[in-house]
């Protein structure tokens, strides 16, 4: 990531003075088709809903009010905190957090193992771990559903072996969603950690060993602090997409594992569509992600200064 630092890095000035001409397509495309839409979405979250989708151009805080407050069935009771949507967000946050933790626990040893192979074997292992990342996410999620459903091969195998006497009932649970998220984003964790471990200087481990540090002490006190930027990058790359994930909760989960992605989608696709509310929920999701990214960026700058 350091290599991508803006401004610094390359000081070449061969095409000096052409920057704005060269960047015009980027500015126009991302500006018009991403920045403007996000600004419009922010505006929509403050408008009045039109039944059957769309909005009426009248300022309203109804969407945010509906998200946070419960005013009773007829809207005339004193406002109480509305837990429905906060619960969905909270579930998404801990599901994403848990998926991140799981990916870290499996991803670090894997990345370490791969990075400490000989050069030839390293590329082979790396290829093995990256191939699933290139396979369509929908296909991977459907495959997971096929594998773990009650009549699926996993249950059939466990029943046959006598380990269980009835299907696990895994599908449509939070656990299934967890498994799906973990499976979807595991390669995102392995790659940045691998890059960090590859740069790790083993002289540090030798120094620690000379000073009578055991294997695990070295891991805890020397290796982990050194490769920390890779660990954090991996965690961000898993946490952020997990938080807004749609496919895993939708295909593997049930009503009790509803997550943000499905909540937002429902507002635009379902019969009970409410565009301002969907826009508001998307704004809240984006704010959470931006906070996470800002904290990450600040920690990076602090590290760079230190």
């Amino acid at each position, binding site marked *: 990531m350091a290599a991508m630092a803006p401004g610094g890095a390359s000081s070449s000035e061969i095409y000096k003075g052409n920057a704005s001409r060269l*960047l015009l397509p980027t500015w126009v495309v*991302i500006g018009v088709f991403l920045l403007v839409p996000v600004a419009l979405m922010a505006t929509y979250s403050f408008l009045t809903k039109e039944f059957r989708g769309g909005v009426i151009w009248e300022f309203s805080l109804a969407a945010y009010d509906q998200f946070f407050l419960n005013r009773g069935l007829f809207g005339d009771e004193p406002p109480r905190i509305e837990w429905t949507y906060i619960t969905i967000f909270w579930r998404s946050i801990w599901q994403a957090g848990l998926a991140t933790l799981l990916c870290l626990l499996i991803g670090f040893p894997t990345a370490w193992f791969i990075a400490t192979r000989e050069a030839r074997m390293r590329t082979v292992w790396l290829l093995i771990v990256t191939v699933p990342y*290139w396979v369509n996410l929908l296909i991977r999620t459907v495959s997971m559903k*096929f594998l773990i459903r009650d009549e699926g091969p996993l249950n059939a195998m466990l029943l046959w072996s006598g380990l269980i006497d009835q299907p696990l009932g895994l599908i449509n649970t939070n656990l299934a969603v967890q498994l799906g998220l973990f499976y979807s984003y595991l390669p995102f964790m392995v790659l940045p950690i691998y890059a960090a471990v590859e740069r790790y200087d*083993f002289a540090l481990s030798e120094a620690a060993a000379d000073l009578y540090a055991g294997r695990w002490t070295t891991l805890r006190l020397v290796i982990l602090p050194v490769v920390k930027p890779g660990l954090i990058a991996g965690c961000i790359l898993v946490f952020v997409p997990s*938080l807004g994930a749609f*496919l895993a909760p939708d295909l593997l989960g049930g009503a009790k594992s509803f997550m943000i992605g499905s909540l937002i989608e429902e507002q635009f696709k379902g019969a009970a569509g409410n565009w301002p509310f969907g826009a508001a929920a998307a704004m809240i999701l*984006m704010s959470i992600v931006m906070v996470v990214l800002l904290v990450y960026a600040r920690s990076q700058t602090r590290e760079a200064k230190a």
Partner: protein
Amino acid sequence: MKQLDLRRFPGFFAITLLCVVVLYAPLLVVSVYSFNASTSITNWGGVSLEWYVDVFTGPESPKFQRAAMNSLIIAVLAGLCATLIATSAAVAMHRAGRFKGKTATFALINLPLMVPEVVTAVASLIFFTAIGFSGGVGTILLAHITFCIPFAYLPIAARMQSVPDSYEQAAMDLYATPWEAFRLVLLPLMMPGIFSGFLLAFIISLDDFLITNFVKGAGVETLPTAIFGAVKQGIKPNIMAISTLMLGVSVVFVTLSWLIGRSGQAKT
């Protein structure tokens, strides 16, 4: 005295194997079951290519073929446009010295990576509806070009950074115009990066479900949205055959990009 191997940690190999099993088990199981002769997806009825025949000639085949065609056209065009835009941006970011707004531009290029996918999907739907674009291949294409730019940019910029500008300097000392230096010197040196950038953008476009599903409008399908629609009614054997075919395509692409990456490294 036996040297303590500092690179080895007990159990790490086992965890790596577990990781590989988790990553591959679902894909392998589906691939195996796609050759199942039975119409039931649960019972094994012997090996057959029946479902592959069904994919190409069965009652649902026109729908999936049209969807596959849409996916392919969109992925190729989105990949090409994103690569073109990203190459031009990479030249500005790495060969045009300092200029005002460079940091902001860098953030802008990476913005599609930072905004959660579902947010981009919602924002695009609202935008296209507001300006009166009805859904279709055109809106899908515009949305795809936008989020493919950073994916194309990453390998291209990485490659450009590893190519010193002395070659272009030399060309210009020999009276090449900046355009000639770019076209005849920099561009050929950049090719491995540009090709990986295109492949990545192509795959990312092909992979996308969520944004496409929001902006596509009624009646237009790409392969992922068509598969999603079918899976909602239950996993059928023909879906497994399609999945296995797509898995095969992905494996071919990774191997291809891996080989290109290796040849690119060998030359530098």
